[in-house]
């Protein structure tokens, strides 16, 4: 590869749009427009990224979304809140419990409903289990993006057990609609807590195994360290949240910083991105792909910690507050954000005195996280584009809603 002058990648946009120009050695070079997606193995769904490439270099990457748009917000304006909960499952389908949770919390705030103690614990258990499941998929598919095929099967093996637990609790394996307004739909089945403890004992050492397999793998580190670096300022400015924000060194987690539900009762840390050295591979920078990946690995450990505390403290009692099915929403509005595996999921629910909300707005974390793509994928290699998009860990169901 010949070295390209830096000016080629940082110059004026109109210069970048020139189809052909004279290269450094008097060679006539031509840029190529190429569609990555909507059907592409590493766009994690139906994302289309329009790449303008100069050889192996990506000059510009423009994401095009909307292939999965179902206008869930319009549906939300036509359904009662409890009817909308299954629709939230279909947004971030890898973290459906968390979506149910956040939407229920938003509506509960609007209605002023208090959730019973046991229900709150069950919600936290489900949310954290689903966080682990979601991060497992992120870990596995990121390995796949990097060409390491084995990680994904390990991840799905463990996720399978979590899905079994969910199935035991609510009968569904992907779209649960388990957490609902006022609590949860059913109490936990028999032996659920024992099985959960069994799973945690099994799962915790596995994270070390993943670290040995992938996180500290020399090639993996070479592929991800220092790639797609997002500074803390950029991350905040582009509205990044969740692991993507924390990887940039911002120690910000709604569960700790603005606790909701019963998260203030638990002891856990907020993992953030760290520079290389002291156990972290050399070459790693704060805010790069490796840190975004590794923050998720550490968050799984923290979730295990929270789950263990839940197991120790879960009380007996009611699992659902008395909320009438046909409750009229007050003529008020509420905006509530909760910490999802991929970032802060927000719901704006506007009531108008009828049982059906006037407006439901979902602020998807993936939507905001993805918007930084074209900023980061500039002057990177073609192989870095899957690395960056994979490390942002999007679910197109939520981007397009």
């Amino acid at each position, binding site marked *: 590869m010949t070295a390209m002058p830096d000016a080629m990648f940082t110059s004026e946009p109109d210069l970048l749009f020139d189809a052909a120009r004279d290269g450094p050695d008097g060679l006539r070079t031509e840029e190529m427009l190429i569609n990555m997606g909507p059907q592409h193995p590493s766009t994690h769904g139906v994302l289309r990224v329009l790449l303008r490439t100069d050889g192996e270099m990506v000059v510009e990457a423009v994401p095009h979304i909307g292939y999965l748009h179902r206008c869930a917000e319009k549906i939300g304006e036509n359904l009662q809140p409890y009817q909308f909960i299954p629709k939230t499952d279909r947004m971030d389908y890898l973290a459906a419990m968390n979506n149910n949770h956040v939407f229920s919390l938003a509506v509960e705030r609007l209605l002023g409903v208090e959730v019973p103690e046991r229900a709150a614990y069950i919600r936290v258990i489900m949310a954290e289990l689903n966080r682990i499941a979601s991060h497992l998929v992120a870990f596995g598919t990121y390995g796949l993006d990097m060409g390491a095929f084995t990680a994904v099967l390990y991840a799905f093996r463990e996720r399978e057990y979590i899905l079994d637990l969910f199935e035991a609790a609510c009968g569904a394996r992907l779209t649960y609609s388990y957490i609902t307004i006022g609590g949860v739909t059913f109490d936990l089945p028999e032996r659920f807590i024992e099985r959960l403890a069994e799973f945690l004992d099994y799962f915790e050492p596995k994270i070390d195994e993943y670290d040995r397999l992938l996180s500290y793998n020399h090639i993996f580190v070479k592929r991800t360290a220092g790639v797609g670096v997002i500074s803390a300022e950029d991350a905040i400015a582009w*509205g990044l949240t969740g692991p993507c924000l924390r990887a940039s060194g911002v*120690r910000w987690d709604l569960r700790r910083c603005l606790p909701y539900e019963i998260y203030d009762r638990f002891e856990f840390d907020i993992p953030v991105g760290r520079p290389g050295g002291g156990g972290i591979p050399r070459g790693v920078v704060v805010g790069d792909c490796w840190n975004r990946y590794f923050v998720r690995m550490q968050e799984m450990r923290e979730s295990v910690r929270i789950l263990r505390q839940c197991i120790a403290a879960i009380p007996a009692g009611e699992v659902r507050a008395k909320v009438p099915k046909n409750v009229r929403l007050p003529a008020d*509005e509420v*905006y509530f*954000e909760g910490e999802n595996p991929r970032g802060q999921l927000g719901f704006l629910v506007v009531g108008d005195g009828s049982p059906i909300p006037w407006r439901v*707005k979902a602020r998807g974390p993936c939507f*905001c996280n993805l*918007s930084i793509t074209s*900023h980061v994928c500039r002057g990177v290699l073609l192989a870095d584009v899957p690395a960056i998009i994979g490390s942002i860990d999007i679910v197109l169901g939520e981007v397009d809603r």
Partner: protein
Amino acid sequence: MTPEEVASLIGSAFPDAVVDAPMNTLHPAVGVVPDRWREVALFLRDDPRLRFNLLRCLSGVDRIAEGRIELVYDLMSLRPAGDGRPWSCGAVAAVRIGVPRDGGSLPSVADVWPAAEWHEREVYDLLGVSFDGHPDLRRILCPDDWVGHPLRKDYVFPVEYHGIPGSTEFGQRSPRH
């Protein structure tokens, strides 16, 4: 910092930019005149007392009875803490701007908060509010040749799109249960 304090700060800096908005709700928001929004946004971001660096959400609400579309900007200010401690939330605030339904527009803040770029495109796409000075104001979720803005309350569902038959539940043109 409470929303009232944020409102009074903006009010003292831009006396003619703030309009009255109810503050005793679950989602208190400062009312701002559309024309002055850009200056207010810069003030919100750069004023050392406020420093709203995170645009959390931009929602559009179609208030069809009042003939306007209400835009709600949810802002948050993240403040770094010392080593190893979680960052703190300096302030949470919302800004409410009403624009007319027909041909309404307001200045874009995509250069103030880059996060607004896609949010504004979404509002443009689904509610038909245009943003002046937006770098790339195209539809984002709907196809480029889509007709109408789906989240408007008087939106009529298309019966057909490029030969794909469209139907709603019970065949209603404008469903409302």
